[in-house]
């Protein structure tokens, strides 16, 4: 039920971007008109692996109606690479093609249909090579070589304590293998980009994206232009979830190449099918994991092997697997750990960033196994978790001591209380059986030690003559609410009303490289940059207020929309701004924040991996129809310790939306590949949850403040997606005694397992 609140309070809760969106006036990339616009399209590889000998009909395609340019790898003026973690991903395939759907050539034409028809018509002469599709197959020494000498894109390890001693000390040992399939982002706005040549010989690129500075880097590499000739703007972005972290760089490069070649504005927008085929996915993972525990339920050791199918190129996979590995033993204090991750190269679509970034797979494995361990110990899984949970002062798998900001226990206890957690142990008579399940997670906020090069953010705050404020930031709004969060951090610091603040569209010419908008870092890192800039301007306002009131600046503080002296005299915000202008104070300032103090030893896997962690608990009740295998989630409660909610409705929205994506991951979303070909590239073939498939999600916000974060805030974007899949699977087991060790868990999986136990 909506909360009963007064009009003022309700108005205060409205997001800064809500009005333009309910009026249909938000400008997504396809909504921005351009004169003389050309439409771009991409010719893609029909085979999963092969040698490109050339193109059979390129002159005919160039002569097709409306076609203005056809570009291949040979036409790239700069380097043929789009930089991610490694520089292995070609902008257009040069000699070797490594996955079905890989871009081979680009077309620009007068209409979208003409461009697509031309791209479709272009025929490449490709000598097909043998291909490998599964990560475990790519590990065989005699198999096809996709990347490097051994098909390993990357590997990481954690060694803590003495693993043999840990298992010797255990009374019970349980070991299982869990598997996850691909997951597709399915943001509602397909990927799109526009490039406009600029008079200086450069190019302005705008589009749907999470990381304008990644796009900027890629454009410099591919075009050979210097940074100052390229400007990147983020248009309104219709959902990202990580899917618009990596691949926008590739699409932007394609669009810019066509614009520079033709001298005209060019737009590339994928249709839904192409978006499914071209964009990166959540990685399929096979996890072997083993816990040892004493009879009283203390976990003594954990061993894990986390094998990731990275696809044909490495994109962000090493960091995905690193994050997965750091968290794979669960939010528990365990003295002895041996864990290894491998990202394998295969001839499938490259996987990349997706909300949770390796953790949903890892958490699915460890939180399923915890329940399996509890059963062997004959313990309540809730009790087993309570006994081992991380708390302030606990040491993580990487040897990091958990700081003061740790709401793990509170998150768990409030969750089980809210849902009245009670296990049924398959006790329901009849066909439809109900059960409850639980999971707990922790999430390292930000890029961590392996991404620290990008762990920085910039902002500019500019107070105008009438007290209105322009805020320039490098981190983007993509639906998650960062624009509102930045508005509030700035307004509350300056003492100005929220509706006087405008956050500008992210633009690489306005603020320094602020890293990506990923890893739940926008509030904690981008927000600190806004705070830093706002505090600098506030210093000037404070001096002016002191002048008006006739006290020292030291005696001034900000309260609501007023500057107040310690003896209780006041000056209104707007009055202070006018005084500051009269004094010729500098009313604009740049802010900067960089994350310090993270470390990671690649030999031992020990170090302070992340600056701080978000702690979460999920519980749900499901109903399993034992005649059809259908599972319905009836109730879902999710609690997250995020330090501080800067804007509560947005925080709740993140929790609810992430949980529903995770229910889709657990039960519905099934991408089917056959020899690297995606067989169901549509929203009918690949089913994301609709409003009738899911229940209301009850969000609980726990606030254990993090002193380094703005107003105590940590990060929230990703944690909601991490835990619910295991909670659902544990609930299914509780309902009907069936343990499915894969995602998605489809009705046929339930039926097959049910047959085994009856």
């Amino acid at each position: 039920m909506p909360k009963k609140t007064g009009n003022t309070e309700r108005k205060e809760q409205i997001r800064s971007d809500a009005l333009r969106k309910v009026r249909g006036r938000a400008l997504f990339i396809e909504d921005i008109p351009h004169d003389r616009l050309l439409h771009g399209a991409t010719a893609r590889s029909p085979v999963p692996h092969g040698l490109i000998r050339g193109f059979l009909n390129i002159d005919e395609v160039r002569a097709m109606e409306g076609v203005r340019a056809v570009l291949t790898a040979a036409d790239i003026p700069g380097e043929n690479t789009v930089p991610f973690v490694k520089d292995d991903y070609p902008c257009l395939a040069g000699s070797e093609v490594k996955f079905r759907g890989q871009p081979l050539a680009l077309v620009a034409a007068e209409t979208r249909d003409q461009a697509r028809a031309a791209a479709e018509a272009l025929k490449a002469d490709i000598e097909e090579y043998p291909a490998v599709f599964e990560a475990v197959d790519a590990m065989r020494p005699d198999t096809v070589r996709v990347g490097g000498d051994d098909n390993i894109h990357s590997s990481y390890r954690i060694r803590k304590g003495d693993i043999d001693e840990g298992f010797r000390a255990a009374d019970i040992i349980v070991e299982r293998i869990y598997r996850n399939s691909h997951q597709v982002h399915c943001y509602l706005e397909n990927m799109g980009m526009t490039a406009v040549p600029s008079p200086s010989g450069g190019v302005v690129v705008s589009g749907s994206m999470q990381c304008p500075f990644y796009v900027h880097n890629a454009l410099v590499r591919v075009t050979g232009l210097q940074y100052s000739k390229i400007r990147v703007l983020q248009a309104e972005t219709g959902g990202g979830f990580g899917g618009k972290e990596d691949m926008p760089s590739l699409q932007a490069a394609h669009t810019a190449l066509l614009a520079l070649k033709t001298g005209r504005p060019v737009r590339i927008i994928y249709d839904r099918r192409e978006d499914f085929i071209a964009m990166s996915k959540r990685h399929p993972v096979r996890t072997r994991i083993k816990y040892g525990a004493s009879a009283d339920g203390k976990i003594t050791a954990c061993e894990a092997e986390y094998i990731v199918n990275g696809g044909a190129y490495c994109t962000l996979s090493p960091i995905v697997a690193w994050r997965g590995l750091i968290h794979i033993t669960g939010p528990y204090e365990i003295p002895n750990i041996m864990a290894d991750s491998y990202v394998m190269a295969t001839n499938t679509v490259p996987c990349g960033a997706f909300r949770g970034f390796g953790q949903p797979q890892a958490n699915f494995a460890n939180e399923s196994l915890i329940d399996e361990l509890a059963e062997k110990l004959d313990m309540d899984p809730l009790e087993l978790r309570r006994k081992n949970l991380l708390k302030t002062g606990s040491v993580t798998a990487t040897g990091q001591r958990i700081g003061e900001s740790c709401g793990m226990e509170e998150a768990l206890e409030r969750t089980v209380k809210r849902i009245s957690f009670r296990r049924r142990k398959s006790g329901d008579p009849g066909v439809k059986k109900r059960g409850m399940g639980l999971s707990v997670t922790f999430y390292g906020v930000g890029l961590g030690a392996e991404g620290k090069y990008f762990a920085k953010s910039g902002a500019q705050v500019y107070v105008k003559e009438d007290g209105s404020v322009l805020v320039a930031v490098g981190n983007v709004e993509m639906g998650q609410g960062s624009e509102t969060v930045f508005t509030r951090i700035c307004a509350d610091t300056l003492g100005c009303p929220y509706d006087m603040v405008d956050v500008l569209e992210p633009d690489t010419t306005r603020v320094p490289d602020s890293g990506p908008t990923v890893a739940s870092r926008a509030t904690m890192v981008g927000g600190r940059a806004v705070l830093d800039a706002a505090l600098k301007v506030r210093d000037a306002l404070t001096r002016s207020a002191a002048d008006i009131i006739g006290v020292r600046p030291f005696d001034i503080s900000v309260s609501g929309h007023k500057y107040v002296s310690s003896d209780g005299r006041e000056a209104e915000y707007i009055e202070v701004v006018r005084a500051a202008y009269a004094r010729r104070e500098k009313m604009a300032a740049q802010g900067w924040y960089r994350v310090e103090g993270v470390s990671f030893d690649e030999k031992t896997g020990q170090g302070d991996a992340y600056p701080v962690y978000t702690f979460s608990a999920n519980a749900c009740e499901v109903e399993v129809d034992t005649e059809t295998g259908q599972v319905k989630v009836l109730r879902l409660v999710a609690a997250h310790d995020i330090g501080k909610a800067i804007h509560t409705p947005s925080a709740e929205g993140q929790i609810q939306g992430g949980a529903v994506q995770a229910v889709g991951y657990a039960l519905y979303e099934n991408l089917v590949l056959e020899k690297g070909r995606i067989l169901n590239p549509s929203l009918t073939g690949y089913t994301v949850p609709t409003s009738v498939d899911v229940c209301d999600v009850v969000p609980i916000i726990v606030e254990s403040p993090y002193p380094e974060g703005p107003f105590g805030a940590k990060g929230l974007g990703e944690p909601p997606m991490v835990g619910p899949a295991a909670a659902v699977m544990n609930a299914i087991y509780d309902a009907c005694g069936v343990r499915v060790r894969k995602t998605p868990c489809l009705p046929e999986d339930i039926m097959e397992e049910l047959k085994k136990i009856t």
Partner: protein
Amino acid sequence: MNISLILNDNKVNIDFNPLRPLLEMLREGFALRSLKEGCGRGECGTCTVLLDGKPVTACMVASGQVEGRSVMTLEGLEGNESFRRIQRAFMETGAVQCGFCTPGFLIAAYALLRDNPSPGREDIRRAVSGNLCRCTGYTKIIDAVERAGEILR
């Protein structure tokens, strides 16, 4: 082909290929940009408009089919006080995240509340089940429609 229709309460004519989708005619022919293309196959609901008062996905209607009929988009509904209250409820409830699906949901919600002023949560879930949202998990959208219903009654 010349197509004449009542678009957002105004009689209009346009020379447009009758086989092309209504979505394209509205966006490109009339510059009505509130409706979006999310799939082009009637799967996602981001191009929902009212055709003779009923919600349809404009990507699945051929332009020629609207000859002589009434088409209403978000732009045309903005003068309607009930519709504005629904917009307001979406804003106040936090039902808007990325905003790409929002116009479609608003139109589906408007059609529901026009026909059923007191829908239950399950009625609301069914009424918007043709509209996908990947951001909110639907809870706050259902809250918003429920709240709009309370205000409009």
